[in-house]
Structure formats: C-alpha cells, structure tokens
C-alpha cells in the first residue's frame, strides 16, 4: 500500500514539475518591482510551507509515539523529521539567494529567517539524536520533535509580531490571480514530491525496525 502511494506521488511530481517550471517561466508575468528573480518565489514559498507541514507531522507523530509507544508513529516522526531537514535546507539556501537579488543582502536577521533557521536546527538535533544517540534516546528525541513543532506557529506569527523586512504572511492574497494560481500550480508537484519522500523514508524505517527486531530475536531469543 505504502509502496503504491509513494510510487504514485513521485510519478505525479515527476510529470507535474516540468509543467510547473514551464508555467512559471513562460506563462506568468514578470513581477514589476523585483523582476525575473521573483520566479524563485514559486518554489521557495511552497518549500517553506512543506517544511512547516512536515515539522507539524513529525511533532504530532512524536507525541503519539510518546503517548502510545507506537513504532509506526516513531517511523513517521523520523521520516517527516528528515524531510524537514531537506526542505529546510532548500528554503534556507534559496531564500538568501532571492534576498541577495532583491534586498541586496542575503541575510537580514529578521524574525522569520531566524525562526526558520531555529526550526531547522531543532530538527538537526532531532535527527542527530536519532542517528548518533545511544539506545533509549528515542523518547528524548521524540520530546525534542514535539517541542520543535511548536516553533511552527512562532514562525508564522513572527512576521506579524516583530518588525521585519520579510514579506508578510498576507502577501499571497495581494498577488494578482495569474501569480497566485501559478504558486498553487507549483505547490502541487513539490507537495507530492515531499509526501513521496516521507512515504519512502517511512517504508525504509519500518523495514529497518522489523529487521532490527529479527536481528535482536536471533541474537537473544529470550528477549523476543
């Protein structure tokens, strides 16, 4: 089932992504103030949305793992957590490139930039704990992911609350229809790709968990 799901999602992403690129560059008007460089927006913003969604999924799954000792939730939390790193890296690298072209400086220490970097750091810590931590750190890492997901509303409200150079969260509503339609057209393949990657990683993690259990049962039959 999971295999079919991620195959479909990744196929959809592979077919849709070139169409989205064509639409962004050929069928969408150039923004008057920023010029051609604004085209980064159509992939930077969906990546940021996917990062926040993946962080919430990871945090909620971690909470379920803590409360119910669910190993499925543990696998989902880790899968979504790793995808936060991938999307977060994309956001944190494409953002400064866009900023360099429009603001003249790649990093302005504004609230949203800092809190996005913090979310990325929290999930770096989570993945580090999961991969490098001793046996028994799974629960500590899950606690970390649950707290990390709390950072998402902070990022959302940071722009509204603090003085910032970053566009506000209402910017999508103020775009002309041709631009926001393209934004959602570009969101679909990115979301499909991100969901597909989470599903693949979940599948691999579940297989590894089962393999771990088999190894443990073989080395110590009494524990099984």
């Amino acid at each position, binding site marked *: 089932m999971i295999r079919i799901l991620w195959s479909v999602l990744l196929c959809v992403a592979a077919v849709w992504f070139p169409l989205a690129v064509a639409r962004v560059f050929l069928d969408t008007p150039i923004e008057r103030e920023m*010029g*051609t*460089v604004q*085209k*980064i927006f159509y*992939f*930077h913003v969906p*990546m940021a949305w996917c990062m926040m969604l993946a962080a919430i999924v990871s945090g909620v799954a971690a909470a379920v793992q803590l409360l119910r000792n669910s190993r499925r939730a543990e696998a989902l939390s880790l899968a979504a957590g*790793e995808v936060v790193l*991938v999307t977060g*890296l*994309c956001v944190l*690298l*494409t953002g400064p*490139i*866009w900023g*360099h*072209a429009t603001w003249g400086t790649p990093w302005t220490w504004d609230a949203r930039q800092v809190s996005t970097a913090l979310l990325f750091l929290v999930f770096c810590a989570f993945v580090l704990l999961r991969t490098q931590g001793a046996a028994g750190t799974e629960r500590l890492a899950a606690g970390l992911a649950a707290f990390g997901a709390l950072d998402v509303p902070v990022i959302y409200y940071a722009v509204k609350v603090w003085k910032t150079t970053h566009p506000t969260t209402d910017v999508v509503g103020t775009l002309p229809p041709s631009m926001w339609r393209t934004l959602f057209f570009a969101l679909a393949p990115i979301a499909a*790709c991100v969901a597909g*990657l989470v599903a*693949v*990683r979940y599948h*691999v993690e579940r*297989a*590894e968990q089962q*393999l771990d259990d*088999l*190894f443990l049962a*073989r080395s110590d039959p009494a524990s099984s």
Partner: protein
Amino acid sequence: MTHRIVATTQPAPPGGQDAYEPVVGRDLASIELERQIEARAAAKTASDYAHIVWAYGILWTVVTLYVLYLYRRVVRLRRDLASLSDGASES
C-alpha cells in the same frame, strides 16, 4: 524603426558638401540615456537569471542528495536482509 544618429551639437559644414539631415526629436543625450537604461536592464536580467540558476540548482542538488541517501539505505537494508537469511539458512 531606424534612425540615423547624428551629433546635433556640431554645426553643419559650410558649402553644402557632405550634407546630412538632422533627425528631429532625437538627440545624443537621450540616445545615451536610452542605451544606459537598456544596459542596466540587461545587467539586471542577467543577474536575475544567475540567481535563478543558483536557486534551482541548489533545490535539485539537495533533493538528489537525499534520494541518493535513501537509495544507500535501501541497499544496506537489502544487504542486512541477505545476511540475516544466510544466517538463518546456515543454522
């Protein structure tokens, strides 16, 4: 639309040889200004494209690296599975 570019600041030579017609409404200063604006626009577009290439290149590289990482994990998983089934068949 084509124009003959002339230096309107210089007077026409006397005697009528090498006569030329001055273009009305197009002076050198405005043409230079136009060229400057075009050059700036071209530089901005070139810079924009450079930024876009970097941004898209990074996106693709990061995602590709993660896919490679996942592929390596799957390869290792298969190897572990093979060693487990080898061990099981030996015992």
